[in-house]
């Protein structure tokens, strides 16, 4: 009897590990080793954990932006830069209009929303025309919109002296400080400090609220329809769902979350980064959700939370620990290999290749 029980438990653990996937396991163990090694090599555990939490708060909304599009079967959202651009427009216009403090943050979100909806709608229409090849086109939509906006940042008639080049009086700077506007409105809100450990409760709460809204949405009628479209579009159409409209809705949601995500990122980071910086923001977000256990056509909120924590944990822990052990900073190279390796792993899964 008891032997039977252990057998069952063993089988369960094995199947659980299998569903977890070996790359994730390796990454989780790697992070665990880093956390254990940290105090031994003289890196403060508390401050490294709070760094990880801080980065988690900064990036989690951007990772959340992957969820709606994966759900509706549009694949990984390599077009995240489009959403980021909507967010940047909101952020800069809010400062331009002269708002300060918390108001400027709320206004940035409000102003970004219509841009995100319009851009996302157009993006959704485009993706509906190219079903099956979304990911490659999403990548290049992101790239071309970023390089188009590079020209616009130079040409748009911004006036605010905190944002334009001081010498010429026109054209936005590459980095704009949000000091005095909305720096830290979320990350300093309800910040709990215990010794070296500080927990950015406000920022994590903000993410939790958004994640909860998305979770609730995915369980409404429209949300279920979205999942149906993602898992089998033909079946969904037969069930009377307007596949194209649902897909557009998911793209708009992803774009909007991307816009919100970058504003949350900026308020913690302290700077708005324009021009080419949104360029490489899609890949870390994509690999984070994949590390969390998502696949090309399946993603959930726990995937976002686990993935962001693991990914940002590695990004924060490797430089400090590695530096103390071997006195070289290999973290950048490790980050590139881990994140792209994860995306490659997800793209080559057999079960997901047949769609």
């Amino acid at each position, binding site marked *: 009897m008891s032997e039977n029980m252990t057998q069952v438990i063993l089988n369960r653990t094995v199947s659980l590990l299998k569903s977890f996937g070996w790359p994730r396991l390796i990454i989780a163990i790697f992070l665990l080793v880093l956390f254990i090694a940290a105090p031994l090599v003289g890196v403060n555990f508390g401050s490294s954990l709070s760094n990880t939490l801080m980065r988690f708060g900064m990036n989690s909304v951007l990772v959340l932006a992957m969820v709606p599009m994966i759900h509706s079967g549009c694949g990984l959202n390599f077009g995240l830069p489009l959403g980021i651009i909507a967010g940047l427009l909101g952020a800069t216009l809010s400062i331009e209009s002269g708002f300060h403090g918390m108001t400027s943050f709320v206004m940035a979100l409000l102003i970004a929303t219509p841009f995100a909806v319009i851009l996302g709608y157009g993006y959704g229409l485009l993706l509906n025309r190219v079903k099956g090849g979304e990911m490659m*086109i999403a990548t290049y939509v992101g790239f071309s919109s970023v390089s188009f906006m590079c020209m616009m940042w130079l040409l748009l008639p911004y006036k605010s002296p905190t944002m334009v080049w001081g010498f010429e009086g026109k054209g936005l700077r590459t980095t704009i400080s949000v000091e005095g506007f909305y720096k830290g409105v979320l990350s300093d809100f309800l910040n709990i400090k215990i010794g070296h450990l500080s927990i950015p409760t406000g920022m994590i709460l903000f993410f939790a609220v958004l994640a909860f809204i998305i979770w609730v949405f995915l369980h409404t009628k429209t949300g279920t329809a979205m999942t149906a479209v993602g898992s089998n579009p033909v079946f969904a159409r037969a069930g009377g769902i307007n596949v194209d409209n649902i897909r557009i809705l998911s793209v708009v949601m992803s774009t909007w979350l991307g816009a919100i995500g970058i504003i949350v990122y900026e308020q913690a980071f302290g700077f708005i980064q324009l021009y080419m910086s949104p360029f490489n923001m899609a890949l870390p977000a994509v690999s984070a959700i994949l590390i969390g256990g998502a696949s090309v056509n399946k993603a959930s909120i726990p995937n976002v939370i686990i993935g962001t924590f693991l990914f940002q944990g590695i990004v924060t822990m490797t430089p400090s620990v590695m530096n103390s052990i071997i006195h070289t900073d290999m973290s950048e190279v490790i980050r*590139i290999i881990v994140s792209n390796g994860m995306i490659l792993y997800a793209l*080559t899964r057999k079960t997901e290749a047949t769609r």
Partner: protein
Amino acid sequence: MSGKKIKQNKVFQLIRNNPVPIMFVIICVICIPLSGYSAGYLISEIITRIVRNSFLIISLLIPIMAGMGLNFGMTLGAMAGEIGLILVSDWQVVGIPGVVLAMIISIPISVLLGWFCGKILNLAKGREMVTSYIISYFISGVYQLIVLYAMGPIIPIKHSSLVLPRGYGIRNTVNLLSMRQCLDNILAIRIGTISIPIVPFLIIAVLCFIMVWFRKTKLGQDMRAVGQDMEVARAAGIKVEKTRILSIIISTVLAGFGMVIYLQNMGTLNTYNSHTQIGMFCIAALLVGGASVDKASIGNVFLGVILFHLMFIVAPKAGMNLIGQAQLGEYFRVFVSYAVITLALVLYESKKRRAGTLTGRKLADAQEDDK
């Protein structure tokens, strides 16, 4: 009357079939007078660009033939070529022997990387392009690991001029002065201010002939069959997976050679940046020449190089003269290269879908008729 109409139709067809090249011709026609460059300068610049880039772009043709789309993984070959050049400049082999030796060193690395890339692409059928794009990033990380950390302690590098001050890893720029334009300068013919390098042109011409010949060989035919329909090809007894891997290996090896030719013309190697943009620019140039994801010819390569690089040369100066900001022109040319790739991909995907629904409808009609 009807003759005129047919002619009009033909013009319309031409525009509809080649929207990208025509758009580029228009951009160039507008920008050239604005930039104020002389014709002689432009022609000599274009000749340099043809010498530099066409070999790299031709390496893209074979995967397209095998139905694997635009090979973003050509960057792998470029990295192999760079490793070859780094080693050769450490061994102080100069001139033509250096270039040839770099090419020879790049072959095994390219074959290995191409095999790896082909294996992975076989696991990701139907999404080759995005996968090869991610592979290029992934291998770029591995390349950095090797060049930045392994070169010095593991792979011996003798000359301190190559190594970073900390004692290992390669410097950001490697000087290739000893090899600079050594291919270009043999038998160069000068007409006025324009010098025409005969040897690189001969190499490229030979490669073009090989390409034409290759299409007619057994392997070339197999690749075209695989590109048309994998299942049919498999039924006909072609080893689909092996053929696909071979096409990627050939492409990677050619890209390695192309990169060596490119860098000997440039004269300096940006160790960590040279390869990152090369794939994007080569693909954009090929598409500008009128190629699509499933069809490309040698004509597309040369038209593409000329139009794309003409735009590249004149855009910053035109932006400078028009608005007073050279930066704007630079952003413009980056935007155009990305926009061209986006447009070509969208056109290809929507064409594929339309063809799919068309055959579907034909099948349905045929079934109706059967009843």
